[in-house]
């Protein structure tokens, strides 16, 4: 079984649109949407949820007013400024470290685990998918990403499916690191803008740290051919390779509006390019 993780560095370069196209083109796969704070893959693959569970991650401090002697020790030791002068806990600042629980001489503080989101296993028109939604503002996206990936891999093993396609998050922080740990292959989707190049270099540096082979796809490649060439050079320097270029094509947005993926809509230029990329990836992924 192989697991391909699709990331980008910069947001909005086309990760999810491309993942959905691969989902259409790959014969037998499990999908995992690991962009848990803004998951969009479901919009294109139409899941029917058949298993749903709560995700409980971050614990938050709670102060029992009855027991509290107002000594202020919890507020003074909190490094995150999560307890105000009235000794009210701000859940958005609380890290759940529990230092306040230990310093309270009245045993008035406890940690309460809250509901942070949900995760589901679904059937989609392209096969099984594991996906999740983190509540707005919630923490622990890394843990939820790890959970979604583990569930997707378990499902693939059980059903003897040879491929897991992971739609990753933008950036290089917690959820991205969590989606790369132990992955087999990475595909970085970028665009030929100076911002896209800058962000791709950081994503590539992260991937190199994990020693995972990375491919690069340049989306909207005709916006600036010169920057596209620089992306090729940077990829080579990082022992990576540009495996395809997708031209700017309004059909991609039109497909999205129809809740379909770009390769389903006939013979557009983007569709041809994406099919070509898949043909180059498939031998390695399905071997």
């Amino acid at each position, binding site marked *: 079984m192989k697991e391909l993780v699709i990331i980008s560095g*910069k*947001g909005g370069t086309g990760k*999810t649109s491309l993942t959905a196209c691969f989902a259409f083109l790959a014969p037998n796969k499990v999908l995992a949407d690991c962009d848990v704070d803004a998951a969009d893959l479901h919009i294109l693959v139409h899941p029917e949820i058949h298993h749903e569970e709560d995700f409980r991650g971050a614990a938050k401090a709670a102060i029992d007013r009855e027991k509290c002697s107002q000594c202020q020790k919890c507020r003074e030791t909190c490094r995150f400024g999560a307890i105000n002068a009235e000794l009210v806990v701000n859940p958005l600042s609380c890290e759940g470290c529990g*230092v306040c629980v230990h310093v309270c001489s009245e045993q008035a503080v406890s940690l309460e685990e809250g509901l942070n989101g949900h995760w589901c296993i679904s059937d989609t028109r392209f096969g099984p998918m594991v996906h999740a939604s983190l509540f707005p*503002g919630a923490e622990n996206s890394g843990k939820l990403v790890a959970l979604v990936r583990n569930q997707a891999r378990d499902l693939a093993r059980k059903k003897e499916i040879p491929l897991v396609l992971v739609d990753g998050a933008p950036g290089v922080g917690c959820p991205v690191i969590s989606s790369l740990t132990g992955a087999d292959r990475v595909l970085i989707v970028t665009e030929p*803008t100076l911002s896209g190049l800058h962000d791709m270099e950081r994503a590539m540096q*992260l991937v190199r740290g994990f020693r995972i082979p990375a491919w690069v796809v340049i989306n909207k490649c005709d916006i600036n051919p010169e920057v596209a060439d620089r992306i090729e050079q940077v990829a080579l320097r990082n022992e990576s390779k540009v495996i395809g270029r997708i031209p700017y094509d309004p059909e991609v947005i039109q497909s999205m509006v129809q809740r379909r993926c770009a390769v389903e809509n006939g013979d557009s230029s983007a569709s041809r390019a994406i099919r070509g990329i898949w043909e180059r990836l498939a031998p390695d992924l399905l071997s």
Partner: protein
Amino acid sequence: MTPMIISVASGKGGTGKTTVATSLAWVLGSTAQLLDCDVEEPNCHVLMKPVLQESQPVAVPVPVVDANKCSLCGKCGEICRFSSIVVIGNQVLTFPEMCHGCGGCTLLCPENAITEGGRELGVIETGFAGPVEFVHGRLRVGEAMSPPLIRAVKHRINRHKIAILDAPPGASCPVIQTITGSDFIVMVTEPTPFGLHDLKIAVGAIEDLGIPLGVILNRSDIGDGEVHGFCSQKGIPLLAEIPHERRIAEGYARGNLLVDSTPQYVDTFLELFVTIRDLINGNRPHLEETKS
């Protein structure tokens, strides 16, 4: 000019947050301070080309154990909620990359055997882009925890200026860390199913904070009309529309500001600021009413 804090956020990535934040800062000139809080992938400097005068590393405190003092009692491992310190056999192991820097182990060690070192999260760089005061954070690649670095960027907010904060994409803790304490939030989105879906999630998070917001529709002539529908149903003001133009995309690709590649937008952004200021002023009494 009244000082204020305006955050630019989006939900979905790549909708034009940085385009809006940089052009807004640019037209406000010396009254503005631009702070790039997208520390995982900061891009404001690509467009603003600031002269950076100062660079300061930001670290999170992590435990350093003095083996001579340690009695191997295991208390540190018991209290650590992040599995970053543990006693195994006759030694203490620390995993500094897991540490949140709460200081619990240092504070509670009965032998006072633990002091604090630092794990570098990244750097904060400051300077000027023309007349605009500029601050950004750059997360060290490989570091997972961005919120403490975002907090450090926000400590640099100049209270005498109009601070413009460029937020990261998404709707989880780094975004909340950025936008908390703002007077207004500009949501930049695009009229597509992805743009709408992620806008709804982000608006849900902002509603909990009670901060007034408005929407800028970028590439407003692609996609469908559903973002319009959502905004009017929710009573969210549509602040501006920026139609898709090849020369805007090409200018951005070269690292040019929107107001440079298409100068007619200078007026759009000046009007945008006036609208935001009026909305903040109009909203203040309303907010105080709802709070009391």
